[in-house]
């Protein structure tokens, strides 16, 4: 759907201020950045995390009393999908050295390093191999690679500043020092990172970076990384097996308290089955499909926070889940594109963000939480948002500036994916700006782990978005693709070493699930909710009312 005549009228105001803004940009004049104190005030007043009712206490488990999003608490205060007394743990469907739960960037990277360390890996994934948030990350991957102006020292400072200085230092250290190695690994695997003619990696700023260290593969960086890693895993099919449409629903421990497998569910034949392993890596990703506070999301269909639930029941602590990341620029027009990620790279390449009068109101490169809070303020309090035909408010992202600053054709060349997409809707984003609003984007926190990806349960490792600590209270752009590749690779190595000298054979059990059920009961939580959710429910509720013989367990029939 092209812009309506009302919106076209408003675009004229953007066009009126554009020449002046382009000139200012060329002179190096920018909208002033907020100080740390101003950032804090803005977050407290306008960020969704601080809204009343945005957090509620968990009443059971190792984090009893910790306040996080009620949508996640609902899943934690729910029963297992399987009755531990019914399932037969002696009937083992698959045996492997390492079971990897999740076939996204972290899981696949882990499988590759596990294979290099001489062990067999089995990836179990909910949808297809590669169906994950990794695939959807657009903007880039950070890494201090240009020694003449940058170093891991500055990357570290940026990571901590973005995370409100709450990050776990050892994890942040690992992230920034492994970054150049991971980029070299990707280059060596044949990942088509965008380069200058002499071979230097092109790099841009991201929100909260002090040096241009965001490397990319056009505007589909995550897809390029994911399809390369997946292709490489398929080349090693002898040692890396993949079970698609088979999400995990519960971890299995053994008599020594070590993690020793998982209960999987075949989404198509609706059977539960057992995988026995010497070690398990949790790499199930994030939780955008929980639609926290009703926000639209950029996340993948399968991002329902399953790993948090399974890990928590097994006794692993959660951390940094009290903050949720909203990406400032999700599309709000046209309706078909709602929630769709508009990469931060547009701002890195020079596009201003503007209110209804075509005025700037915030620097484009604040950390994501601050940028989002500023958009919400401009719409809700200042009242200068732009009303869409469906009654939503948005902010202009002035993409045509990029063609003016970088030369005609730059938008099409640098952002081919978005250019084609909007063209299909009848909008030329090299000529007209886009309408955007914050959208639920990233699970900042998750399972507690260390820089070797170990958790408190022996034999149980975590990597990627399901884990928490490296990004503190707010992740910077370009650090999630880095996170999944850095910690995915480490998890594969750590789990391999574990299988060789620490794993202990023992009788399998689901006692932790029984204990958890008992704890729910003792806390007075009587519920028929089940978790993990596995898939969101988007089917038509009116149709459901007529499904008179259907039996739903959670969201799934």
């Amino acid at each position, binding site marked *: 759907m092209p812009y309506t005549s009302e919106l076209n009228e408003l675009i004229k105001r953007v066009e009126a201020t554009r020449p002046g803004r382009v000139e200012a940009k060329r002179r190096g004049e920018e909208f002033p950045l907020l100080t740390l104190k101003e950032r804090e005030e803005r977050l407290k007043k306008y960020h969704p995390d601080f809204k009343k009712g945005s957090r509620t206490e968990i009443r059971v488990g190792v984090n009893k009393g910790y306040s996080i999003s009620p949508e996640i608490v609902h899943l934690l205060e729910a029963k297992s999908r399987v009755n531990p007394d019914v399932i037969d743990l002696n009937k083992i469907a698959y045996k492997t050295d390492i079971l990897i739960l999740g076939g996204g960037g972290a899981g696949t990277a882990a499988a590759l390093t596990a294979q290099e360390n001489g062990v067999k890996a089995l990836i179990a994934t909910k949808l297809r191999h590669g*169906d994950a948030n990794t695939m959807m990350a657009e903007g880039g991957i950070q890494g201090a690679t*240009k*020694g003449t102006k940058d170093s891991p*020292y500055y990357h570290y400072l940026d990571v901590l500043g973005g995370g409100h200085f709450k990050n776990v230092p050892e994890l942040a250290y690992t992230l920034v020092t492994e970054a150049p190695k991971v*980029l*070299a690994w990707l280059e060596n695997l044949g*990942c088509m990172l965008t380069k200058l003619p002499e071979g230097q*990696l092109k790099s841009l700023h991201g929100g909260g970076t*002090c040096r241009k260290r965001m490397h990319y593969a056009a505007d589909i960086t995550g897809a390029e990384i994911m399809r390369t890693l997946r292709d490489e895993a398929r080349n090693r099919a002898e040692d890396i097996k993949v079970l698609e449409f088979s999400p995990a629903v519960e971890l299995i421990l053994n008599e020594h308290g070590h993690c020793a497998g998982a209960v999987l569910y075949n989404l198509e034949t609706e059977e539960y089955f057992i995988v026995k392993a010497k070690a398990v890596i949790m790499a199930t990703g994030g939780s955008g499909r929980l639609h926290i506070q009703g926000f639209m999301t950029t996340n993948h269909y399968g991002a329902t926070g399953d790993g948090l639930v399974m890990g928590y029941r097994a006794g692993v602590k959660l951390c940094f889940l009290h903050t949720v990341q909203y990406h400032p620029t999700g599309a709000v027009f046209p309706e078909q594109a709602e929630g769709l990620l508009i990469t931060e790279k547009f701002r890195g390449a020079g596009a201003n963000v503007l209110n209804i009068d075509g005025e700037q109101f915030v620097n484009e490169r604040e950390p994501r939480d601050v940028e989002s809070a500023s958009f919400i303020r401009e719409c809700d309090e200042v009242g200068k948002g732009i009303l869409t035909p469906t009654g939503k408010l948005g902010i202009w992202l002035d993409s045509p500036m990029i063609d003016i600053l970088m030369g005609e054709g730059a938008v099409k060349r640098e952002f081919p*994916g978005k250019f084609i997409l909007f063209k299909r809707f009848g909008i030329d984003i090299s000529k007209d700006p886009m309408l955007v609003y914050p959208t639920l984007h990233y699970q900042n926190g998750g399972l507690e782990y260390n820089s070797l990806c170990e958790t408190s349960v022996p034999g149980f490792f975590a990597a990627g978005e399901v884990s928490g600590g490296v990004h503190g209270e707010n992740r910077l752009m370009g650090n999630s693709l880095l996170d999944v590749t850095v910690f995915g690779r480490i998890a594969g190595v750590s789990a391999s070493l574990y299988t060789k000298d620490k794993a202990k054979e023992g009788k399998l059990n689901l006692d932790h699930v029984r204990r958890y059920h008992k704890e729910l009961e003792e806390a007075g939580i009587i519920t028929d909710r089940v978790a993990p959710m596995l898939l969101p429910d988007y089917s038509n509720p009116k149709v459901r009312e007529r499904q008179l013989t259907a039996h739903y367990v959670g969201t799934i029939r």
Partner: protein
Amino acid sequence: MEVEANKKEELVPIFIMGKRYEVPASLTIQKAMEYAGYQLIRGCGCRGGICGACGTVYRFPGSYKIEVGLACQTVVQPDMYLTQIPFFPATKSIYDIEKVKPAIETLVKNYPELLRCLQCNTCTKSCPMDIEVMDYIAAGMRGDITRLAELSFDCVMCGLCTSRCPAEICQYNIAILGRRLYGKYVAPRAEHLASMVREVEKGKYEQMLRQLMDTDEETLKNLYSAREIEPEQGDEYWTPKDKTYL
């Protein structure tokens, strides 16, 4: 939550695998299927046009033409009759990326059927991403790895080309082989990256990082606020004034 059909909105008939449903005119095929009552398992992935899970083919009554689209990106049109093709069997050659050459021999050895191309252009017409598929296959047949990689870059590997190819070529797997050959062997190497890896491995930044890790929050905040910011419009060769921590 995703299905927010406006009650006043006009409904249009579509035929999902031949069966008629009335759905709001503004929905994508994916949301229209959910509106009709489907809970998707196959044929739904990122919901954002990049994962290739929801390749869909459709026709209109009275037209011979086969149309294609990603269900999550294509808005319904009255009377379209459609089916998703969530999976199509494909050949995937196993190769060792360390031991192959960026040359036509590699492509032909791994995918001999490449040379069966009839140049019918059905693949290009079947691509929901508007990629010139036949042209990249032609580039492959000439051994032009660079062109193959560039032309296929936006491929989401949905498999629609493969489902319709009369020569039984699996175009998208040839394309990723081409892109990896390009990325690894043809594109010039990033020397600055290799030298940074050497410095990190030698431990050049170890002491300064350990110092930062032990620093109290106040000092960290001061260091953070005092960072010298690279100008956004600065060029590749900008250098900071303070080089102590480089």
